[in-house]
Every structure is written in C-alpha cells, then in structure tokens.
C-alpha cells in the first residue's frame, strides 16, 4: 500500500466509468473490424476498412448532402470503392452478396447492433448501432447514420492533433471569462496532458525519422511545419491566460476584503491560486517541448545525411548470413561475430626458449653465443657469472674442509657411522662441520657419485654437473697423497638428527 497513490487512485476510480462511456462510440468499430466475409471469396478485403468507407459515404452523401441512401446506392459505391482500393472487380451476384455481407457486419445480428459493457466500470449499454434503417415515403429502405456513428466519425479525423493545445487553451480562457473556475482548473489538466503528449510525440517522430525512410522524413516535416505554425499562437495564448489569472487573483486579493468572502469567493480564489501554479508548470513543459523540437530539427539534418551515406553501403543481414552458415554447417565464424563483445586481451606469455636461456646463463654451454662472450675483449661481464663463481668457490672451500675432516676421522679406522660421530662431536665440530650449509650437499653429491661410477662415459659425467665434488676430490687426493679414497653409503632405515627437527639418512663412510 503506497500512501502517495491514494489521491490518484480515487481520481482514477471516479473517472474510469466516464472515460469508458466516452469510448462507447468506438466499440462497435472494434467489433466490426473482426467481421469476416464468406471465406475464400474476399479474403484480402478487410472488413474494418470497408466499413469505414461505408460510414464515410453515409456521412458525406447522406448527412452533409442530405441524400436518401438505399441499398442500391451503397452497392454502387462499394463496387467503386473495392475496385479502387483493392483492385477487385465485383459484379452481379458477388457484388450483391458482398454488399449484403458488409451491411450485416455493420448492423450486426439482424440489425440489433452491439451490446457493450464492462463488469465494474460500465454497466451494459445495449444495442449500440452505427447504421439504422428508415422507411422512405416510397417504401424503399433507407440507411442512415446514428449519432454515435457521427461522433465516432468526427473523432477519427476532424481535429488535427497539433492544434489541440491551442483549442484547450481557448477553452480554458473561455471558462475563466465565465468565472467557471472549477471547470477551468480541470481543463488545465487537459492542456498539460496535451503538452506532455506532444513531448512524447517528439520521440516517435525521431524514431520515424531514423527508421521510417522517406515517409518518416515526410511526417517529420509535417510535424515541424505545424509546430512552427502553432508555436507563436500558443505562446501568445499562454501569456494572455496567465495575465488573466493573475489579474483576477489580484482583484480578489485587493478589492474584496476577506471578511466579505463567501463560500463561492473562497473557492474561486483557491482555484485561481492553483491555476496559477499549474499554468507555470505548463509553460515550463511547453518550453521543454519547443527545446526538443529545436534539437530534433538539428538532428534531422544529421540523420538524413547519415542515411544518405548508409544507403550506399550494403548492410549486413543477419538472417541471410545464418542461412549461408547453415549450408556450410559450421559455426566457426561465429567466434568472429562474438569477438567485438570481449574486452581486448594482450596475451602475456613467456616463451619456453627464453626461460631456458635465463637458466643456462653463465654455465659452460657449447652454444656459439657463450663462446663469443668469453673470447671477445668487448664482452660485457654479466653479474650472474660472477655470482655463480662466488657460489662455486664457497662450495669448493666448504667441501674441502669437510672432506679433510673425514680423512682425519679415517686415520685410525676403516669406516665410521655418521650418526655416531655426530652424537659424540663437540660444539666446535658441530658448528663448523655438521651445521655447515654445504654438509648435506656434500653427502648427496657423494651418494650421487656412487650411481655415476656405473656410467663409464667420460663426457657424460662432465655434463652431470658434479664437477664441484670431482674437482675437490681430485685436489684433495693430490694434496694428501693417501692410498685410499672415500666412499659414502646410506644405511637403510636409519636416520640422524642433525639439528632440531632436521633428519637425514644415516650414512657410513669407509675407506676404499
């Protein structure tokens, strides 16, 4: 329940029956529209159109020229109408049948007319007719329009839409002059409604202009012509009406003192007040309308220019293209059609070859580029090279240190178990040997050495990258001139804890 709508709701419910009654004159036509001629014969002829033609005939010839219209007259007229409009020649029996059918449709149900009503808002009005029969003095049946029909007929054309604002304003003026303030206030709503309707029409005209082809452009020109014609008139009327209202209000306010205000005067004053406000709003709306017209006129030139350009360019027909695709059976090109809806994408990717290049940098590789770098004097030393060298030097130093320690241990025994040694080791040894960053690496390299002795290929060994340990061992063996070498083997299911929470497989180190 929305409180704001209560007033409008009451107005609506009060007004609806009145509005529906005023629609009553159209209802017969809505029913007539659906009338059918006997099947097969005049399928393309529209009952609504023909009946409108007959009503027109009865109005111009019957009412305005005050002629007596009989069946034969209608028949003659229909023959001409159908030939002109549909290009169909009706003669003899078929013409007679057609005329009969048409009159039946208009008069409905043996002349009873139409029963019209709605359950709540309009109690049934029965037998609404457009055409009735009269017997002339000579006994011939004549056909005549009813007032409803005349009303309907006039409503469908006589007042041009564009001048309705003027008419509403004139009515308003008259009402004010006659001191009919209540009615005037209501009439003001009509004026507003007209202006709002015209504003809505501007949009329609714009659409017609863009898509309606030459007819659209014509309707735009007509609209603009009328708007121009009435604009000056409407502005004048608006200002006159406002003047009128203001003067009246002031009269009321100054000349008549408040104590002399009767019921009628208070009411009138209130009305004038509200009319003043409403009229201000209307003027604003009207200005808005004129503004839109100006914009539309400007757009019209641009639109027609664009259309001329577009006319020369063949446009893309979606259903034709789909048919073509259907013959091929493949939707592959649909991807291209959906692509404009995706945001631009720049593919970010690293080429695998580039990654390899980065990783191999500085290592002795047989590629030409590296050779060039090392040989030419102009070669720029790259930091990664230096960095790698530093690491290698540290590793070699540490390895030498630890291996010498192993040799010391093996002086008076053939082998020893690492776990035992670590347990018995003093603080100094622990710090420098077992907590040495390269200790684990050394053990692992030794273990790997075991696997590689199986491979006898000299070159293969070189590429394995165990060059650090090999180098170190070579040096140490030369330095110490021992008559044995060191071998390290793992002990299954045995682990040593080097540091807190850090375990490694226990190994045995022996002379070989």
């Amino acid at each position, binding site marked *: 329940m929305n409180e704001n709508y209560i007033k409008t709701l009451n107005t609506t419910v009060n007004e609806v029956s009145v509005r529906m009654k005023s629609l009553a004159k159209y209802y017969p036509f809505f029913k007539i529209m659906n009338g059918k001629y006997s099947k097969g014969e005049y399928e393309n002829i529209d009952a609504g159109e023909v009946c409108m033609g007959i009503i027109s005939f009865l109005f111009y010839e019957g009412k305005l020229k005050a002629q007596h219209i009989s069946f034969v007259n209608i028949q003659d007229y229909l023959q001409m109408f159908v030939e002109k409009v549909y290009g169909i020649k009706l003669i003899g029996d078929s013409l007679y049948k057609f005329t009969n059918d048409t009159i039946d449709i208009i008069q409905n149900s043996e002349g009873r007319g139409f029963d019209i009503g709605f359950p709540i808002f309009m109690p049934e009005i029965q037998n609404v007719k457009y055409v009735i029969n009269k017997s002339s003095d000579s006994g011939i049946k004549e056909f005549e329009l009813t007032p409803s029909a005349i009303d309907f007929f006039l409503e469908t054309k006589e007042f041009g839409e564009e001048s309705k604002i003027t008419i509403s304003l004139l009515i308003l003026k008259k009402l004010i002059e006659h001191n009919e303030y209540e009615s005037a206030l209501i009439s003001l709503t009509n004026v507003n409604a007209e202006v709002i309707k015209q504003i809505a029409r501007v949009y329609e005209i714009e659409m017609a202009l863009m898509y309606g082809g030459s007819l659209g452009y014509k309707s735009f020109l007509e609209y603009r012509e009328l708007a121009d014609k009435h604009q000056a008139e409407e502005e004048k009327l608006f200002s006159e009406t406002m003047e009128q209202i203001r003067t009246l209000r002031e009269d009321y306010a100054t000349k008549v003192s408040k104590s002399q205000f009767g019921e009628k005067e208070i009411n009138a004053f209130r009305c004038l007040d509200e009319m003043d406000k409403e009229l201000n709003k209307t003027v604003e709306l009207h200005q808005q309308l004129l503004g839109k017209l100006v914009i539309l006129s400007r757009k019209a030139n641009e639109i027609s220019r664009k259309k001329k350009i577009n006319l020369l360019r063949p446009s893309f027909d979606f259903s034709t293209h789909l048919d073509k695709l259907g013959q091929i*059976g493949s939707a592959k*090109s649909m991807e291209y*059609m959906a692509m404009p*809806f995706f945001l631009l994408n720049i593919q970010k990717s690293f080429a695998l070859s580039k990654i390899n290049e980065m990783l191999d940098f500085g290592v002795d590789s047989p590629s030409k580029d590296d050779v060039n770098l090392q040989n030419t004097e102009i070669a720029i030393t790259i930091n990664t090279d230096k960095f790698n060298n530093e690491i290698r030097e540290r590793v070699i130093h540490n390895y030498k240190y630890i291996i010498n320690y192993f040799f010391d241990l093996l002086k008076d025994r053939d082998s020893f178990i690492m776990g035992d040694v670590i347990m018995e080791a003093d603080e100094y040894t622990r710090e420098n040997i077992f907590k040495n960053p390269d200790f684990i690496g050394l053990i692992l390299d030794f273990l790997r050495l075991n696997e590689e002795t199986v491979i006898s290929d000299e070159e293969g060994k070189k590429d394995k990258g165990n060059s650090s340990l090999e180098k170190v061992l070579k040096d140490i063996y030369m330095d110490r001139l021992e008559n044995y070498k060191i071998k390290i083997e793992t002990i299954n299911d045995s682990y040593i804890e080097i540091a807190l929470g850090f375990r490694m497989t226990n190994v045995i180190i022996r002379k070989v």
Partner: protein
Amino acid sequence: MDSNTKTALEIFSNMIRNIPVNGKTNKDLYRSLLTNSIVAAELDEIVEMFQLELYITETEGAFVIAKANNKVFGYTNEELRSRLGTKNNKELYLCYFAIYCVIATFYIQSNYRTQVEYITSKSLLDRVEDKLTVLANNTNIENGEDSSFKEMHKYWMNEMNESNNRNKETVDFNEKRGKTRLTLINKTLAFLVENKYMDKDEYTSRYSIIPKFEYIVERFFDDADTKTVLQRLLDEEIEEQRGNINA
C-alpha cells in the same frame, strides 16, 4: 616526442588496458581527444595500425574494438571458456550462437532495428533451440568438429537438460548452475550484462540492449574489414567441403 603524439599514445595505452577514457575517468585525456583534432587524428592512425576500431560515444567515452582481421589482440580458447564459464568448446560455440541470436532478435540488418523491446531467458532459449534445430537438420554435411551445427545440436539436446527442474512449474529462469541449457543462456546473458551491453531489469528479468550494444552492432558488421573476413571464412569452408566431397 610531440605532446600531441604523447597524449594520443596515453589514451591508446589506457584503452588497450581496458581502462575507461570518458567524462568521469581520465577526464583530461577525454577532453583533449574531443577538442584537439591533432590528437584525434594521431590516435586514429595508431588505432588503425593495431587493426582496431575507435568508437566514441557520449555514455561510454572512447573505447576500441578489435577488427575482425586483428592479429595482435586475441584469446586462447581456454581463456574464452573461462570468460563465459563454459566447460568445453561445444558449449563455447553454443554461447557464440546465443550471442548471435540476441543480435538477430534486435536487428534485421545492421542498420535496421526490429520492434523488439526486450527478451527473457526463456524467449532466448526457445529461439536458440529453434534456430539450432533448423540449422542442424538442414545440412547433410557430416562434420565431426565442435563447431559444426550438428554436433552443437547433438550436445544441446542429449547432454544438457532444459533446466535443473524437471517439473516445469518450479523452474527458476535465472538459474546459473549445472549443465543445463537455461544455465548456458543465463551465463551468456550475464556476460553481456556484466560488460555493459545489456541491461537486466531485476523485477521482471527482462533483458534489453543499451547504447553500447547498438553502437557496436551497427558499426562492426557494417565495417568492410568484417565483411571481408567473414566472406573469406565462408569461402574457405566451402572450399574445404568441396575438397572433402571430392576426396
């Protein structure tokens, strides 16, 4: 570098990173584009070199669309699938087909709108199904690829249920889960809404197109390059088929 060229490059850099250049974001760049004709001309040249098309609208500002023959910007199928939320290439092509159906609903030709004001998931689903059925049945060509209408239709009918609820009365027309036809349609529509091509009215679940959509359809499909590419694709496919038939 000339300051005009620099401005044009800056605008370009923003556009290709999908950063808006309009009255709200990058206001200064946008204003210089509108008022400085040299900047506009330079930008046009740059855009053309990258095989893009520049659009300027009141609502969206300046943005670029890749032309049909663009070789610089693109997606892999995987990326496309993830954007649309589809699981395989057949579903991907079905999404493309759904997008095409949306366009064809609102446009007869690229410069001629229909009177349609809105669509719903159900209406789009029906339309896609009808068109797909016709296309699949009309061709006698057996083509086992994911992009063939026959395969797409088979997948649509056999491997996807219409919706998560067999009982038609409790169907949730906004569903986006599961392997159903309705989900695919909804995901496609959601993609279009997310990228500001369509507008969804939450109360009535009606989808309507908004200016950016109109702008693109009316220009992209009229563009000579697009037509050339599409025609070339058609010709290639026809050649391929002739080759297959002869083989």
